[in-house]
């Protein structure tokens, strides 16, 4: 059984290979291809999205974005929900994000990758420049997908299906 890091490393080293991530669990309602092939992302795009997912929402005491298969979810979302215009925009967004992070991004070490993404994130949320709209949008999708997963909702958000009552004042 490979670890999450090994899976990611494999993806990054061998972009031409198929995504093993799609066989992971987490978000049930995505029609993931059973043959392990993505339906929307190229293998290269999948590797980029996977890397960004892992750095934005890593595994901590709770599962991270890779553990709950956010990349596979986004692949399914784009294949099933998005129309051709949104699909084209999403492809273009990834190109822009790749340019902003640098073409060597997938080959640099973990700390460097983290720093470079943190710098991009800072710019994206500092003044709301339109230059980083694509990154903010991808980050939003990753976050929504993660917290819509069973682990994200139950373990991180402490989502309760049936609260049973309303309490307007809970001291933290």
């Amino acid at each position, binding site marked *: 059984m490979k670890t999450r890091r090994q899976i990611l490393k494999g993806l990054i080293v061998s972009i031409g290979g198929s995504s093993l991530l799609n066989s992971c669990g*987490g*978000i*049930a*309602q*995505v029609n993931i291809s059973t043959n392990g092939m993505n339906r929307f992302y190229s293998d290269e795009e999948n590797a980029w999205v996977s890397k960004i997912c892992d*750095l*934005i*929402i*890593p595994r*901590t005491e709770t599962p*991270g974005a890779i553990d709950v298969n956010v990349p596979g979810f986004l692949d*399914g*979302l784009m294949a*099933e*929900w*998005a*129309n051709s215009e*949104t699909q084209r925009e999403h492809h273009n967004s990834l190109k822009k994000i790749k340019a902003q992070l640098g073409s060597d991004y997938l080959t640099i070490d973990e700390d460097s990758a*983290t720093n470079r*993404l*943190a710098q991009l*994130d*800072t710019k*994206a*949320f*500092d003044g709301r420049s339109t230059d980083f709209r694509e990154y*903010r949008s991808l*980050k*939003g*999708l*990753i*976050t*929504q*997908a993660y*917290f*819509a*997963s*069973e682990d994200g*909702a139950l373990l*991180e*958000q*402490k*989502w*309760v*299906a*049936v*609260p*049973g*009552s*309303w*309490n*307007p*004042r*809970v*001291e*933290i």
Partner: protein
Amino acid sequence: MTDFDAIVVGSGMSGGWSAKELCERGLKVLVLERGPEIKPERDYVDQLPPWEQKNLDRISQEEIEKHYFKQYPGVAYAVKESNKHFWVKDDEHPYETVEGTEYDWLRGYHTAGRSIMWSRQSYRMGPQDFTANKDEGVAIDWPVRYDEIKPWYDYVEEFVGVAGNRDGLEQLPDGVYQPGFELTDAEKFFKSSVESKFPGRNVIQARVAHLTEATDEQRDLGRSNCQARNRCHFGCAFKAYFSSLHATLPAAERTGNMTIVHNAIVQTLEYDEDAKRVTGVRVIDAQTNERRFYSSKLVFLNASAIASAMILLQSKSEAFPNGLANTSDQVGRNLMDHISGAGANGLINGFENQKVFGRRPGGIYIPRYANITEKGKPYTRGFGYQGSASPIGNAGGQIAGIGRKFKEAHRSPGPWRISIGAFGEQLPNPNNRVTLHPNKTDKWGNPIALFNVSYGENEHVMLEEARKDAVAMLEAAGCTNINSNPVNLTVPGNRIHEMGSARMGNDPSDSVLNKWCQTHDVPNLFVTDGAFMTSAACQNPSISYMAFTARACDHAVKLMQDKVI
């Protein structure tokens, strides 16, 4: 001998009440619903957790373009992948608007109609709402005053179950309430700030049709208390919010007097010129195109303000060449909705050490003050605000940071945001109307609706002022980061409060219905959906439709007992 004592056209908010009241008074009642049957155990999707909602519960963009191009943009907060079967497909149920105008006709064709998708805000009309037309010389006078309808509000609220507080406001009369959903501390602070700075304004709990202390009668119908899940647009397995499906139709059913037929699209009402009575209803089956006729002694139209008007307009005869009960030429006219598109939001500070538990169905309400407690406004009538103050919580990724810190930031409730939005009164205007399209029909051969509705100056001025007032109230509470976009007046129909298309009045020459919602022209024909409204007020109207329907049913049965009809 007729097939039934009464026929009720439509099973929604008011149709359910007609069915219940007439059945409980011993009449054999046929309820005609144009859509398919909804079975909660099969069709509700309120139990789906987030991870079982396909594609973040988003309808595919291609499907929206093909089937939901009006419904989805009109009410995107409620139309989702999992519950799209509650909303009509626009390509199957087309309508048109006169060039240069817009209209959102947002609908659900199925058992209980839109009563399973409504937002459940339940406010009585106040005394001023029944006299405003007369006082201001607008349109025609209501033939009813608040004191006459008050007992019927009491009656329906007790059955419905409304959670709210008794606030003692003359313009927004108190009703029969179950315990309300307590305000958050931030809302209480906002309330005290606003009421201190603006003595004529009040901030109160939203009044919502949710059970919080279910009565024996409500439990007998299988209903139980609200579980604070906020999944109401997807149905409710607990039957905690009021809908025809949860309350009135089961009450009618248990009498043994109700027959309900689905997929029955009413085309016309049959009129006997000798007897001067409606004799029955002609329908076409939505699935088989089979045409049928049902006879009855009494007909209640509860198809919604627009559909009821269209049925009348389609029912032409020698006696009524312009449509049944339309000698006044008011059928289809005076079409009103409420107006929104003005408000403000901002951060309300000092509550960062608190969060909430549960997801309540309503927040705060600011009852109308304009031209009541505050005079001299540059517009007539007024508006109420709906809103809430709650932690921002999960910001959907739109905060800075990556990694553990970013992930764990979503555990925090974060700062508190307050948001309020206006619901204003649209004035009646006979030129705002729905008519039958002169040459286009739907797939069943029925003329499609043609809307010609636009707002007047009063609506525009009112909302500009509502926006300013909203900002001023947030400022009074010391809010920061206040946002208030320029007014973007909602498209007519968008608030899904269509009303006025067969208004009631004292004079048969300028109104369709008398004070009992009985048509002036045809004694055994009643219209008790939103069509009867002579003016719109600014309160969410459903509870008023219910009260007037119950009252009309009581009157109709007395007329039958007295052999008047």
